[in-house]
């Protein structure tokens, strides 16, 4: 198996080959062993400095990246828009170049605008990891989701995965679609029509508007968070009605007559897209996803940094 990624940055799943994804997942496997040892730290990225630039609120992705960096012995700095000069009108390129002038090797960036990481990669000289850009991509989430499915079910190939919720505003959905397809899974999306991109079917996914039918079809259900903060106009009348149609509770889960795996990228709106009973059930691998997130991000950072040595 090859040991290098075909890309210089991780901008999205779209630009990865299947071999790249497989390499990341197999490397993550090794790092998961590492972080379960008594001494969780390896020296792989010693002397590498990573800037975590979060132009949009994030708790768990930022912590996951930071932990991954620290476990790899990288030096890290954190920057979030709230405390930045962005609000003073400084451009993204200027902000990032100012940080890079302090000799930073890699940038992990979350940004509200789709394509912001692609834009940055075209204009600055550092390796970039996309930690979520608007409704475009969230590649490490998709990688950790695939890794979690693989860990639970043995393989992703041939599995049926449904992604439920706000597909229109979801970078998680988009990256998951690309990643799961490249790994040979069948993908379905499910949600209200107002939150379903009109042309999503052209990406080769099945589209279903009835949650029960979707659950009956799938092996894995990935329940997305309803992101009211991304919706500047109303796409459905109330959360209550959303839950009535797309909320997953135990009676529904039991009634489909088979055992499916439940995932959620977090943070959960308990009682909205998923009830506590489902989230905390043995079928749920939500906390595995969190643990796997650190291992996958370690793999990504390690593999991208590795290219500088050659």
């Amino acid at each position, binding site marked *: 198996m090859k040991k290098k990624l075909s890309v210089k940055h991780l901008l999205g799943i779209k630009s990865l080959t299947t071999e790249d994804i497989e390499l990341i997942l197999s490397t993550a496997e090794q790092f998961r062993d590492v972080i379960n040892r008594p001494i969780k730290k390896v020296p792989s990225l010693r002397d590498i400095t990573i800037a975590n630039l979060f132009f949009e609120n994030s708790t768990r992705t930022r912590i996951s990246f930071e932990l991954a960096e620290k476990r790899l012995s990288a030096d890290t700095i954190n920057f979030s828009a709230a405390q930045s000069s962005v609000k003073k009108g400084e451009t993204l390129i200027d902000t990032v170049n100012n940080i890079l002038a302090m000799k930073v090797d890699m940038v992990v960036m979350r940004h509200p605008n*789709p*394509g912001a990481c692609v834009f940055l990669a075209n204009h600055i000289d550092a390796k970039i990891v996309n930690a979520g850009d608007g409704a*475009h991509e969230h590649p490490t989430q998709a990688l950790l989701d695939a890794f979690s499915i693989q860990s639970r079910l043995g393989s992703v190939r041939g599995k049926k995965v449904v992604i439920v919720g706000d597909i229109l505003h979801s970078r998680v959905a988009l990256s998951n679609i690309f990643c799961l397809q490249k790994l040979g899974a069948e993908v379905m999306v499910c949600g209200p029509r107002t939150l379903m991109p009109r042309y999503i079917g*052209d990406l080769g996914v099945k589209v279903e508007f009835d949650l029960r039918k979707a659950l009956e079809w799938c092996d894995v259900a990935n329940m997305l968070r309803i992101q009211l903060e991304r919706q500047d106009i109303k796409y459905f009348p109330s959360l209550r009605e959303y839950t009535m149609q797309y909320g997953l509770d135990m009676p529904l889960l039991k009634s489909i007559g088979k055992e499916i795996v439940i995932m959620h990228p977090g943070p959960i709106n308990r009682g909205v897209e998923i009830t506590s009973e489902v989230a905390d059930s043995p079928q749920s691998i939500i906390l595995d996803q969190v643990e796997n997130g650190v291992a996958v991000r370690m793999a990504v950072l390690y593999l991208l940094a590795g290219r500088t040595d050659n």
Partner: protein
Amino acid sequence: MSTTILIKRARIVAPGQSNNGKTTDILIENGIITKMADSITHDQAIVYQSPELMVAPGFMDLHAHLSDPGFEYKETLESGAAAAAAGGYTAVLAMPDNNPVTHSKSQVEYIIKRSAGLPAKIYPAGAVTVKLEGKELAEMYDMHQAGAIAFTDADHPIAHAGVLLRALQYSSNFGARIHVRCEDPQLAYGGQMNEGVNSTKLGLKGIPAVAEEVMLAHHLAIAEYAQTPIHIMAVSSAGSVELIRNAKKKGVPVTAAVHASHLLYTDDRLTEFDTNFKLSPPLRTQHDRDALVAGVLDGTIDCITSGHRPEDTECKVLEFDLATPGMNTLETNFSMVCAVGKFNAEQLVNALAVQPRNITGIKVPQIEVGQPAEITLFDCTQKWIYKKDQAKSKGVNSPLFDQELQGVILGTIC
């Protein structure tokens, strides 16, 4: 003009004129065509010649944002006119979305005064509504008297049906046509590019074609009711072409334009978030592009415009969502039309020179002995490079910089 110009072995492309199709030498003295004959010689003349030289009535662009006054860092009347002349245009309709907006006599007079003597004629278009807000009618009669030849709110749609109806009725009194952009603001809300598989892949909010079509259908109904000519700017979708085609069949007094960019490109160009291809209206699909070309060929779409919108780095080199839509096109528009590869010379001149004047009521320059020379010289077979450091426009936003393009403008005389 006190110079003498000799055009050698040029084919005249002047649809509808008696000399159309003739290949001849043309002598121009002091701005007047003085001689047309098989072989003219003149010692002092500036000579134009090219393997497949064509001479046509000067091109006229009905959709250029010259940004002056107010945004002189993007373009000035001087740089815009120079770019127009380099692109083969002898006349340009300047959009009113300046600062201040061209919505009263004094702004019209400013443009006319400041553009005197420039290498292309700049015709001001006045705003239909005050500040382009779509609410209150601007003083169109006064502006028309001062020299505004058409009225438009530029790329701002006039969503209020009552305002549009009154604008059409009012301006018809003095024979100036209203030019409108059709895009329903609610359906296009927040949109960054065409809604389609590409916007889905890129996570960018889409502007559906129906946003244009719904307002177009609405405008056509109002124009039919008012029995007043209306001009549809920047048509972008197959559905719009069909709506206009049917309206024309019904006798609705409508004319339409398409930007060359929309005849040439599709939203496939956006897969790397290149803001040079972020346009308004957005680039759409191959299906739409084919329909637009067919619309030009069958006369549904009357003319081809540049949609020239020069921008500076601060408006274009940033995150896609934040970038201003538009492309710097005056100098390259002719080559872009040539690159479409579907139009013969007569169709090209009809769409670039004849119809724009018919729409605005300007006399088409005649290529005849004794007539003032307002002509464009071009050769569709020759190649050139649009060098960034020699560009006349101030706009940084062209995807064609430093690329070899086919279809050369050899010069304009006006």
